[in-house]
């Protein structure tokens, strides 16, 4: 029991079949405080599905996830309270203003009334949104929208932050900003984010997991020498290109 409580996120053999040739199988991931895990894979490898299973937005056929000891199957509400999730499309209401949207998100995640305002202020600063806090979300540029999406995932101080391709569509500058936020968050909590760029994973993560055809085929700490991982990943890409042309 103590074993499970130590992990902020403990996924045990998650499987979910979506169709004959899509799904994820036997995904097991354990994250501790300070872990930043990059979920690396080609498009369609099962990264988003894996994240949806971890956040409980998709129910697995088998297996379970524990968030700081709370099972997504047995105590879904307690478990969900401790996750922050940014899907590949940030869940934003275009007619709301940034600040009131974030305040509502804090309320929704059961942040104590006295702390709601200070939490919102904190993420506004952290995600560099002070200048647009009174703007309607619909008027914001892609980069700002992505940051509001990230702020929404952070506002209740989750134990585990899960991001689905967070730097998609961002310019290099914004990408750097996003990476810094991920790194900062990773110092206090556990972060898992998906990407199809090896370089990005290497720049931010201290652990990398590779998903291919719905299976976790590699999981290791990031060390100075990543030759092996690079070979593996280029190999996968080549496989995929061959399969597509065949």
């Amino acid at each position: 029991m103590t074993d499970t409580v130590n992990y902020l996120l403990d996924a045990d053999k998650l499987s979910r079949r979506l169709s004959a040739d899509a799904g994820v199988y036997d995904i097991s991931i354990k994250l501790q405080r300070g872990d930043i895990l990059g979920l690396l894979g080609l498009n369609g490898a099962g990264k988003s599905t894996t994240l949806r299973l971890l956040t409980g937005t998709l129910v697995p056929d088998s297996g379970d996830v524990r968030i700081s000891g709370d099972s997504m199957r047995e105590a879904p509400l307690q478990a969900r309270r401790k996750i922050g999730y940014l899907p590949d499309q940030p869940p934003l209401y275009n007619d709301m203003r940034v600040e009131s949207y974030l305040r509502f998100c804090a309320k929704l995640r059961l942040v104590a009334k006295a702390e709601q305002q200070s939490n919102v202020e904190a993420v506004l600063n952290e995600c560099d949104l002070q200048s647009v806090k009174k703007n309607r979300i619909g008027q914001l540029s892609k980069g700002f929208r992505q940051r509001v999406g990230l702020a929404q995932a952070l506002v209740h101080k989750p134990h585990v932050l899960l991001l689905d391709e967070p730097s998609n569509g961002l310019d290099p500058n914004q990408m750097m900003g996003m990476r810094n936020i991920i790194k900062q968050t990773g110092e206090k909590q556990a972060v898992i984010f998906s990407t199809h760029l090896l370089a990005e994973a290497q720049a931010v993560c201290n652990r990398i997991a590779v998903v291919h055809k719905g299976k976790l085929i590699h999981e290791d700490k990031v060390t100075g020498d990543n030759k092996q991982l690079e070979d593996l990943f280029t190999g996968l890409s080549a496989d995929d290109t061959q399969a597509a042309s065949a």
Partner: protein
Amino acid sequence: MIGAIAGFESRALLRSAQTWIIAAVLAIVFAYLFLQALETYLEVQPQLALQDHPTGLSGFLAVRYLAPLVMVFALIAPLLAMRSFSDEYRQHTMALWQSSPVSMTGLVVGKFLGVALVILLLVMVAGLLPAFMRFYTALDFGVLAASVLGLSLASLMFTAIGLFFSSITKHAIIAVAASVLLLVLLWLLGSAGSADNILTNVLAIFAIPTHLAGFFQGYISTASVAYFVILTVLFISLTIIRLDALRHSG
């Protein structure tokens, strides 16, 4: 939490221009129907007075003004409920609710209450017009209260149906069309065929007019109240089932 979601939904409705356009059009419809009913009453009053038990102004307005409004609300309620879930699907915001510590029951009940609040406000406005006649003549508030209750219960049921169809499609307009079609069907059940046909009579038990008529004559029957409450709860439950299924269906 349900209260917070209801507040969120009401506020979302009040932020949208569409709600205010609907409210403005309704104000015109209310005023037109009300004045028309009033004028007719003044015309026929001399003849009514000759009857043994003449219909008073309250009874007349209940049947000629408040009862037809049920049809108006059969369109308005689905129109106000149509975006509840369709918009969430289209804006990809369902993930926000699904990854938050909210049960789907809480979400659906909260959203229903949010839309219901706006609908009931509109029903109250409709009910206020006849009440103003109090300054000119004596009114039978029993009949008016029963009518407003009937109108409210029916509108809540229409809202639940609108909410359900909204949870099925991301196209809000399809949700409205489906809701209105179902309501027309429920309206016409058992109205065809002769009165001594068993099938006709059985179908009529499930028809809306069967249960609505009494309210506008000042009768509140338990069976009729139960009919509207049961259908409302049924469609709310179906919406919850639908949203729970969504979490399983990828």
